[in-house]
């Protein structure tokens, strides 16, 4: 009976976090981020809409290799009035920059809602499916944490990923990375279940999802790379078993990925090849700046930044986990997934665009949540966990009321933090374990982080966007 009540409470909390995630993503979703700041959002939807309507994908491309292209002013959401540079849009067909699955989802939804021309694909319409997808990501992140690290990690991870403003705002944008995130998280869940229960269907599911990920964008190949690293790590020197599993995985995932080649060949294999190879000439952000930028500045779009201390501290913890020898496979899986995407990120050389870094965030938040949960559960990193959580809260407060407005409360903050730090240090030194007290304190900080995140999100409107997010 007691267990039933506990499980029901956990389930209710899980559902509450999902509803919260959906609610914060849905509020002002059609206005923020400002429609038109990334015309890719429209392009994806036009590709899907045109594919359904005319059988040929039509969209915007910035790369060479297209036979059919022309310029047009398509004033959807009247973005030529708000964020335009003055240049008309270059329309290309048949569009093959990326696989068409995301376009089919957003454009398909617009089609079902009655859209027939490109101007119909307003952000009010086309952002709805992506909000659902990014809410699913919150659920998958929680499931991964729950399965591998326990319920407290799932709650901390869920709350952080559901409400962190950078994640919420980026989760409203129609970018393929937002669809790759749930695929990668699902692969992480399935492979950890495969290692746990040794049932082939978990590997099969991972393979299907990995195949689907590449139909959103070629960077979806991160799922293949991650599964390879995970199997390699699991089987160590047993290459026969490694090859057996990876062969099975590829036999399922590659035919799904190959659908993009089939799609391309429908509109001319030469054309498809030209466009694919034109991708190799894209801007490449080589040099140390690309990695420093990634860690220090979190981008929403090419020119909009929204630094988040939870993401930055996630990087620090990741480096800690990376250099520490781990016996725990589940912790290794997160490190391997981050490493896999880092390789993809560097290979695709994606410095100037914000959305290429989106898939790092759920992984970094998992790492952060695990670290904080260890502290809450009486682990050795209690002080570090407290220090990081208080830094995140401090950064959130400074965003809300400004540094100068905060000064009347500075003494209160200093005294409060010092007292808590002193008490926790003392408890660590004399090995006192008031687990309940520590749990209440750290969970209180997590709730305060959630609250300040939501307050900040509530204050973001068009005016705030232009003035404060740069």
């Amino acid at each position: 009976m007691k267990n039933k009540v506990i499980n029901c409470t956990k389930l209710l909390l899980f559902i509450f976090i999902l509803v919260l995630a959906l609610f914060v993503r849905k509020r002002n979703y059609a206005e923020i981020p400002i429609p038109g700041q990334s015309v890719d959002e429209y392009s994806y939807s036009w590709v899907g809409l045109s594919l359904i309507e005319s059988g040929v994908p039509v969209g915007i491309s910035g790369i060479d290799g297209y036979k059919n292209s022309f310029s047009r002013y398509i004033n959807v959401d009247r973005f030529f009035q708000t964020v335009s540079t003055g240049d008309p849009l270059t329309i290309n067909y048949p569009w093959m920059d990326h696989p068409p699955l995301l376009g089919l989802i957003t454009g398909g939804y617009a089609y079902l809602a009655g859209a027939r021309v490109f101007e119909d694909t307003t952000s009010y319409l086309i952002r709805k499916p992506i909000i659902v997808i990014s809410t699913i990501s919150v659920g998958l992140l929680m499931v991964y944490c729950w399965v591998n690290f326990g319920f407290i990690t799932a709650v901390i991870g869920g709350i952080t990923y559901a409400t962190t403003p950078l994640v919420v705002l980026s989760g409203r944008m129609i970018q393929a990375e937002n669809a790759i995130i749930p695929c990668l998280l699902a692969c992480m869940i399935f492979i950890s279940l495969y290692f746990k229960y040794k049932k082939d269907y978990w590997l099969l599911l991972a393979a299907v999802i990995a195949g689907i990920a590449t139909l959103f964008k070629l960077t979806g190949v991160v799922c293949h790379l991650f599964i390879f690293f995970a199997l390699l790590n699991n089987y160590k020197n047993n290459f026969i078993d490694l090859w057996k599993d990876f062969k099975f995985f590829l036999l399922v995932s590659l035919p799904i990925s190959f659908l993009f080649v089939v799609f391309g060949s429908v509109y001319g294999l030469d054309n498809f090849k030209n466009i694919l190879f034109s991708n190799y000439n894209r801007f490449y952000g080589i040099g140390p700046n690309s990695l420093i930028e990634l860690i220090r500045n979190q981008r929403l779009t090419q020119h909009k930044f929204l630094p988040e201390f939870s993401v930055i501290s996630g990087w620090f913890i990741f480096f800690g986990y990376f250099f520490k020898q781990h016996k725990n496979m589940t912790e290794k899986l997160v490190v391997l997934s981050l490493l896999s995407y880092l390789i993809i990120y560097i290979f695709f050389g994606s410095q100037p665009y914000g959305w290429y870094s989106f898939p790092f965030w759920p992984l970094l938040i998992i790492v952060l949540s695990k670290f904080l949960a260890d502290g809450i559960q009486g682990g050795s990193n209690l002080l570090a966990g407290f220090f990081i959580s208080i830094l995140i809260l401090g950064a959130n407060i400074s965003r809300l009321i400004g540094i100068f407005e905060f000064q009347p409360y500075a003494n209160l903050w200093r005294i409060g933090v010092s007292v808590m730090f002193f008490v926790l240090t003392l408890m660590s030194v004399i090995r006192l374990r008031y687990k309940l007290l520590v749990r209440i304190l750290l969970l209180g900080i997590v709730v305060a982080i959630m609250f300040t995140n939501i307050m900040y999100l509530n204050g973001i409107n068009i005016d705030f966007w232009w003035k404060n997010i740069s």
Partner: protein
Amino acid sequence: MVVFFGLKIYSQKKFSTAKLHKMVSGKSMFRDMTTDLCKYQILGDPKEIGNYVKVNILCDSGKKANSTLSLSAIEDKTVGGFIKEYARIIGFDEKLFFKNNIMCYLDGKVLTSEMLTGPILPKSDIDCSENDKI
């Protein structure tokens, strides 16, 4: 094979340039039409040098709408075609341009209905005002 032939047949059956044109240049059912010529404009200047037309409108309320359009994005390169496209992009009835109280000039000359079939030249200026305030 099913995907390949299915998509091939579907695209051959459904695609036409008229349909493409309709999708790309069709008016939205979700967008409002305005009667205020100064309510909306096109921001910025096209990067392409020397191949643009400027539209400047001055309204009674004192509001102005200044737009610069690249000619490369205009299919029908006549004066009438340009005005029609401008009206489509902004979202108003092109006939508003020829209402009694609106006076327009093309490169300093009064815009007449005869001029509509003539070509629109790069770097042209179309200046309009309510009640001829220019």
